[in-house]
Each structure stands twice: as structure tokens, then as C-alpha cells.
């Protein structure tokens, strides 16, 4: 077996406070502070401190090395912020590493986000050519595969309609179809499979494993451990920018899940950094099961409790809390307090919501929190995306929607439904 990718001591450093917009004025300001020996007046500190920061620098990746043989399918897993996306960005040449080098054999294509470069005014046909070229195909290659792409995407009838008239499902299918028909030797895939309906997802997974069968090297990033286990023979686990495990996919995913279980599943803010306004500020939130111990990994059999703690600063403030559950790139559902309640006294309040067992599927969920008033003048007090993440898995030790079915079960919800199987009714 020959090598296809060799990642050698890759590190990537971001300078905090330099990310984002800069103006000449800020630069002069910074320089003037430096001259006077004062700390940088504009330095931003990231919300989460990973402890790998020194002098306003953050190592998004630290000395990562691994090699991939041709035809190998590697799963890349880790928590949000572990450096997975940075690694993929460096591999797909979107940004450069700070030190180290990566050697590649053959063309590399990335499916970091499908539909990149789609132009809404252009038709499906026109966008196939444009998107294909952006992803690195020549016009001839696209022409050759055009029919295949169209039939894969299932939008034959609308190929001459501007894509702005497409439904989001059609849009995504077309975009994935183009990407799936690239013929790169090395493919980088980041959670694109989370899109489209279940049947289409299955088709994409099929296409990916087919690709792997053809000797294509694939790097696959996902929060979906089931997909990783199914598609990948090997996986690497990143944590705080370091590679902490490299081995058979099943072992690495198991380690990841057990490690994630130790996370606390709470988040809190000090008074002056708490999101919100002076009327309402979110002070903290936590996730726990029946035993009341905060955690971030739940069995599908667990009832999940989510507690929001907030401070009301102005008497007679009326509002309601809402949670949005995101998974696999879509909103699974949203939930709101059924009425807008008046909190007449200033002080700290809390709201707890129970998510019934056997509702969420095995996946990683992230929560958006908002606190708002919609009766009368609409007002948002808190609007926080990715406030907390948690994972749902099926330990298969207790009855669940799976029954005794152990293979991949699709979907973002997993209700336990009753099946009535009739006795033989006739011949």
C-alpha cells in the first residue's frame, strides 16, 4: 500500500484579537499602547479558554502528524473547537499552517460546505458547470458527467430553472451531486451528509463508501459516531488542538464518548459577561438526568432536564424562554415556555424543561437559547447560539426504539412507536 497523505508536525496558530475586522486606527492604537508599554487595548479573549494560549496566541492545532494510505477512510472526531475544522481547512488549502507540512499525492477536493459558489440567478445547469469548476473540474469533465450528476440529484425537471426557485432540499441535492462526482484522489468531507432527506443521505453514504472502494482516500469529519464507525476503518481524536488518539474507529469513538461523558454539561457566566440586557441576563444553564448530576452525554432512555438560570433586573418584566435543538446541520425542533410570564420582582429565576426519553436520536445536539417578549413590542433579551452541546447515544442495554436492530437508524428524532403486527389474515 502506498501513502496518499502525510501530515507532518502541523501546527496552526491564531492570534487572538487579530481575528476580525481591523482598521488602520486600531493598528495605530495598538502600536501606541505597545510603545508606552501598556497591554494591547483591543485584545479579545475567546469565550472558551482551552488553556493552550500564550501571549494572546492560540494554538488551534499543535504538532499533528499522521499518515494515510491510499484508499483509507479516516474519521476525524473531537469536540467543537478541538481543531477538526482547522485541520480540514489546512488540508484543503483554504488557509496555511503555521509550521509543519503536508504532502499529498493526487488531487484533493473538499466538501467543506456544499453549494459553495452557487449563484442564485443562474439555472441548475449553469450552476453545475460553475460549481464544478470551482471545485476543480474542467469543463470537459463536467460535460462528461453532466447526466450522471443530474440523475443523482433528482432535479431533472428543473435543470433550466434558476436555483433561487429551488426548495432547499433540491438545492442541497444538486450541490452534493456535483461534489460527489468530483474524481479526486483525496476527499475531505465535513458533515455534508447531514443534509437532505433520509433517502438522499443513504445515497450519499453509499456514494462515499463506493468512492472508498475505488481506492480513494477519504477524511471524514462528523459528530455522528455511528456514521464514523460505519464508514471509517480508522479514526483520529483531536482535543484542544492535539492528536490524542489514533487507531481503529470503534476504539477511538468509544474513547471519545467516554471522555465526553466526563464533561460537566453546565455553563455559567459572571455578572458582567452574562449574555442579555439589563432587563434579563442569562446567568447559567445546565443539563442533567433524573439523578440531578450535570452531564453532557445521555442515554436515549434518559429524560433530559435543561435548567436555565437568569437574572431579572427590572420589575415587571414579561418574557418567555425558548430553546432550539440543532443537530446534523438542521433544527430538530424548538420549544418555548407556553406563556409569557411576568416576573414582578428583580432577582434570579430559573426555568427547567424536561425532554422526554425516546425523543432525540443518537447524535450530537447543540442548544440555542433565547429569551424574548413577543406580546406587544417584540423584544429579544437573550439570543445565544451553541450555548451548550450534548450527546445522545443508545447504550442498547435498555429497551429503545431500536428493538434488537443494531445497524444505522436514520433521523433526528427517535420516538419509540408501537408496532402492531397482525396475525396472518388471508392467503
Amino acid at each position, binding site marked *: 500500500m*502506498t*501513502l496518499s497523505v*502525510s501530515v507532518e508536525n502541523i501546527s496552526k496558530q*491564531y*492570534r487572538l484579537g*487579530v*481575528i476580525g*475586522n*481591523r*482598521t*488602520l*486606527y486600531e*493598528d495605530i492604537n495598538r502600536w501606541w499602547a505597545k510603545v508606552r508599554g501598556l497591554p494591547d487595548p483591543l485584545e479579545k479573549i475567546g469565550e472558551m479558554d482551552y488553556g493552550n494560549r500564550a501571549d494572546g496566541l492560540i494554538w488551534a492545532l499543535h504538532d499533528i502528524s499522521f*499518515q494515510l494510505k491510499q484508499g483509507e477512510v479516516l474519521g476525524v472526531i473531537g469536540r467543537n473547537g478541538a481543531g477538526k475544522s482547522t485541520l480540514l*481547512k*489546512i*488540508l*484543503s*488549502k*483554504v*488557509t*496555511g*499552517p*503555521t*509550521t*509543519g*507540512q*503536508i*504532502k*499529498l*499525492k*493526487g488531487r*484533493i477536493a*473538499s466538501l*467543506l*460546505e456544499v453549494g*459553495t*459558489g452557487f*449563484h442564485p*440567478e*443562474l439555472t441548475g445547469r*449553469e450552476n453545475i*458547470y*460553475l460549481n464544478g*469548476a*470551482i*471545485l*476543480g473540474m*474542467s*469543463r470537459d469533465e463536467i460535460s462528461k458527467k453532466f447526466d450522471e450528476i443530474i440523475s443523482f440529484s433528482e432535479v431533472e425537471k428543473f435543470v433550466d430553472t*434558476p436555483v433561487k426557485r429551488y426548495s432547499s432540499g433540491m438545492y442541497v441535492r444538486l450541490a452534493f451531486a456535483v461534489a460527489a462526482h468530483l474524481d479526486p484522489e483525496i476527499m475531505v468531507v465535513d458533515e455534508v451528509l447531514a443534509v437532505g432527506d433520509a433517502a438522499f443521505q443513504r445515497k450519499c453514504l453509499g456514494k462515499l463508501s463506493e468512492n472508498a472502494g475505488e481506492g480513494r482516500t477519504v477524511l471524514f469529519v462528523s459528530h455522528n459516531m455511528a456514521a464514523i464507525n460505519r464508514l471509517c476503518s480508522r479514526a483520529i481524536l483531536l482535543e484542544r488542538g492535539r492528536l490524542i488518539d489514533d487507531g481503529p474507529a470503534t476504539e477511538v469513538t468509544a474513547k471519545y464518548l467516554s471522555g465526553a461523558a466526563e464533561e460537566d454539561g453546565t455553563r455559567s457566566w459572571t455578572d458582567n459577561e452574562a449574555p442579555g440586557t439589563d432587563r434579563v441576563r442569562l446567568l447559567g444553564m445546565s443539563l442533567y438526568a433524573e439523578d440531578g448530576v450535570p452531564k453532557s452525554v445521555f442515554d436515549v432512555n434518559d429524560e433530559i432536564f435543561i435548567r436555565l438560570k437568569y437574572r431579572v433586573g427590572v420589575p415587571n418584566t414579561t418574557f418567555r424562554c425558548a430553546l432550539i435543538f440543532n443537530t446534523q446541520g438542521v433544527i430538530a425542533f424548538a420549544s418555548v415556555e407556553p406563556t409569557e410570564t411576568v416576573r414582578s420582582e428583580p432577582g434570579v429565576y430559573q426555568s427547567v424543561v424536561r425532554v422526554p426519553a425516546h425523543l432525540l436520536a443518537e447524535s450530537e445536539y447543540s442548544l440555542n437559547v433565547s429569551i424574548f417578549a413577543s406580546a406587544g413590542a417584540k423584544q429579544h433579551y437573550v439570543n445565544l447560539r451553541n450555548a451548550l452541546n450534548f450527546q445522545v447515544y443508545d447504550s442498547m442495554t435498555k429497551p429503545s426504539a431500536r428493538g434488537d436492530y443494531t445497524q444505522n437508524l436514520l433521523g433526528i428524532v427517535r420516538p419509540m412507536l408501537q408496532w402492531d403486527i397482525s396475525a396472518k389474515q388471508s392467503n
Partner: protein
Amino acid sequence: MQTMIEKEKWTDVIKPQRNWLDWRLGELWRARDLIMLFVWRDFVSVYKQTILGPLWYLIQPILTTLTFTVIFGQIAALPTDQLPDFIFYLSGSVIWAYFAECLNKTSMTFISNSSLFGKVYFPRLAVPISVLISNLIAFAIQFALFLLFVLYYWLVAGVVTPNWSVVLLPVYILMMAGLGLGFGVIVSALTTRYRDLQFLVRFGVQLVMYATPVIYPLSSIPEKYQFLIKANPMTSIVEGFRYSFLGSGTIEVWNLLYSFLFMLITLLIGILLFNRIEATFMDTV
């Protein structure tokens, strides 16, 4: 293991800093289909859902020229080298528009494409180059309009006299494209750090127009100050263009050579900077 790796034939190596002189022109050449598709996208998408469509390419210079004719020709009564006001201003605005559009649009390369650049790699220079070409199409349409008026003023009115130096047209275009691209990519590379520049550019281009003989002929400037105007590399191009097609103005080989050299140096600095910033700009935008 180590020896096995040494023997591998790698086709690509991703390194932290790209060499100053590693321009990857081969890669750019392989992206020619992409460049043409960008050109075509810009051309097609801009006028979709407009009633007049590509006619706007003609309406713009005519309106500009009429404005110039009224304000600078009639009200301010600036000299025009004895040419009819209309053709004089039309020549200036058509040729200036190409340079200005190239510069304005290429200077936005990183800002307006940051979401695309953040997700997929292709030679970044493909974008500014496609801008030059799509503007060339617009220029061709406007130039055709200009030629019609030249023919009228030449054959019917007999007040303009095109001459053999019209063969220099490709040189003028090349120089404007080079200057537009050079300045444009310098600005686009710097705007990734300093957003202020993007506001400065549009304004600056307009100001520089007044330092270029677009709305007045070079001959109307007092002799001792002409060197100031001539220091502007666009001067010899606009004047030369006018001399070739209208028969007035000046064409000086030394000035043209100066502009050409200026263009080459700008382009070189621009590409060096662009190339340098390309790999890491995503971290700063």
C-alpha cells in the same frame, strides 16, 4: 518506514509560507475554464431580471458623457482641443471607465469573495483576472459605440482624424488592465488588514480621474505643471488613445514607455503581495 516515505512521489506539498517567487502559474492556467465561467457568470447574472439588460453597458457611458458635456463643456467651458465636446468626453469616459472598473472590482477580491475563499481552494488570482476579462467585454461594447461616433465625426462632420496609431489600441488596453490589476490586487491584499482602504479606493479613483486628462486635454495645462500630470501613468494612455482615434492630443513614446514600466512594476508588486497573503488571508478577514 522513513526510507519508504523518502521514496514516495508527492504531487503537492502544503507549506507554511509560500515562496515569494512561487507564483503557481501552471495552476492558474489549469483554472482557465474556471476563469471563463466566472466571466460568464458576471456577465449573465448582472443583467438578469433587468428590463434593458446589456443595454446598460451603453446607457452608462452616454449618460456620463452627457453629464460631462453639460457641466465641463457648457457650464465650466473647459477647452477640448478644438474637438466637439461630446466625442471628447466620450473618449475620456469610455477609456477611463475600463481602468476604474478594473481597479474598483479587483480591489474587492478578498472582501467580496471571502465566503467562497473560506471554503474551497482554487488559484485566487482567477478572480481578479476574470474581472479584467468581463470588464473587457463591457469595454468592447462601449468602444463599439465610441467607434460609431468617431466614424460619424470623421466621415460626416470631418472634425476628427484617426490615424495609423490606432494599432496601439491593444497596448493601451494591456496597460490599463495591468495597472488596474496591479493596483487592485495591492489594495485587495491590504484591505484584508485595513478595511478603511475599500472606501478610500472608490473615492481615490474618482480623484485620480481629475489628475488625468479625462475631462480636459493635457495641452490646457501650463507647460511647467505638465510633468505633474505626466507622472500619472494613465495620462499617456488617455492622451494616446485620443490622439489615435480623434487626431488631437499628444503621443510621446517616452511617456508611453514610462507608463508601461510603471505598469510592470505595479503588477509585480501586486502579484507578489497577493501571492504572499493568499495562503493566510482567511485568518484575518
